[in-house]
């Protein structure tokens, strides 16, 4: 997901790149997809979006449409059934886009590892930018993971 510029760098270009990176870091809209989790992680994600944690202060907004989203928060192992859907949602998102895998299952398959109906972890299907371990991870952990992802977008 390298958005590095291929044009020669002029001062104007630098300013524009800085602006773009700034806007991207400060306005991540997320979409949430469950590709076969036990629903534990999803409940934690919903808890993260409640007024108690109020992610809107970082500019995070939950979107319904993949076309509006920048970050795909995926939970659970990828089952054979949902593999196609997961890919399709990812392909519907406009560039630049990022994937965050939430929960042990998303990282490795977790308790479902080796099941007959499982393709495997999320990174076997999609390029994952951030992993958030835990079964399920606490809302604080999810926030830290997303913030870490956003920090990594800062131009060096």
């Amino acid at each position: 997901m390298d958005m590095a510029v291929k044009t020669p760098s002029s001062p104007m270009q630098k300013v524009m790149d800085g602006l773009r990176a700034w806007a991207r870091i400060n306005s991540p809209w997320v979409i949430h997809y469950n590709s076969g989790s036990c629903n534990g992680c999803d409940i934690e994600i919903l808890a993260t979006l409640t007024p108690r944690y109020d992610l809107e202060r970082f500019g995070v907004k939950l979107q319904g449409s993949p076309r509006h989203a920048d970050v795909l928060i995926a939970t659970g192992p990828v089952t054979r059934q949902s593999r196609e859907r997961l890919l399709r949602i990812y392909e519907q998102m406009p560039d630049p886009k990022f994937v965050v895998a939430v929960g042990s299952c998303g990282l490795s398959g977790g308790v479902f590892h080796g099941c007959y109906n499982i393709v495997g972890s999320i990174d076997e299907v999609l390029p994952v930018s951030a992993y958030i371990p835990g079964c399920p991870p606490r809302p604080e952990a999810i926030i830290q993971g997303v913030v870490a992802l956003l920090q990594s977008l800062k131009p060096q």
Partner: protein
Amino acid sequence: MNLPLPSIILLLFFPGGLFLIASGLVYQWADRKLVARFQNRIGPRWFQPLADVFKLLAKEEIVPTGAIKGLFHGLPIVALASALTAALYVPLAGFNASYSFQGDLIVVFYLLSVLTICIGLAGANNISRFSIIGATRTLTQIFSYEAPFLLALLGPAIAAGSWSISKINIYAQENVWLILAQPIGFVVALIGLMGKLELPPFDAPEAETEIVAGALTEYSGRGLALFRIGKDVELVIGLTLISALYLGGLANPLDFLWKTVVLLLVTAGLQALFARLRIDQTVGMWWRVGALLGLLQLLAIILGRLIGPLF
């Protein structure tokens, strides 16, 4: 106050164009922040709308298969342009309207509707089922609030005896606030504005929990950014219009600021207070209650004008 500026500056910088977009973003932030505070949250940072717009502008724009390309790209531009045009006829920021003629009240009213119609068409232009349901709802809703809203704007026009917003503005400054003389009209106008902007409780056309994002489901990047800016601009113009008509007119920038902010406080409170209405409830409410109240107000004004001279 009058603005002695050449037309090009009026159009591009102040009060049209840049100033209007900037104030639209500020008002969007204020609205979101107020709703967040009412919900006991911290809310977005002050630059949030700006970051959203820049991000959307820098994003890839996907044209879905089945959509007509020209319409897909053209509709957001028409929507924003008509919203910006409407600003030339209202006393924005307390300065006299840049242009005015008899009947500009109606022109502004329809220019503000163009945005909604564009959103409806943009939804119908796609083959995605969510866009189409959203478009149907958007267009259904426009038919429900439009008539009562127009009736509510007629009241001040009849009272002032003029169809020009600038004249009504001057009349409102010289007389008792029309919110006192025509309270029903004010309520209908304010709630009509919320319906126009699809704010909760009238956000059935873009209900995330049912139809993803309504008519704009398939829009990404620039188109979405333009539609969002258009809505923000419409928020500012709507607030200006209602405070000019009902809250004693806008004489100077300070007047503009406190009157629109008070209105924004009220609308944000209503947004936080009410849950979303179903689309049939919205239509029912507008036609059974809203239109009736509007007519009642009109009747009262006409009676007042007939009986008034007798005493």
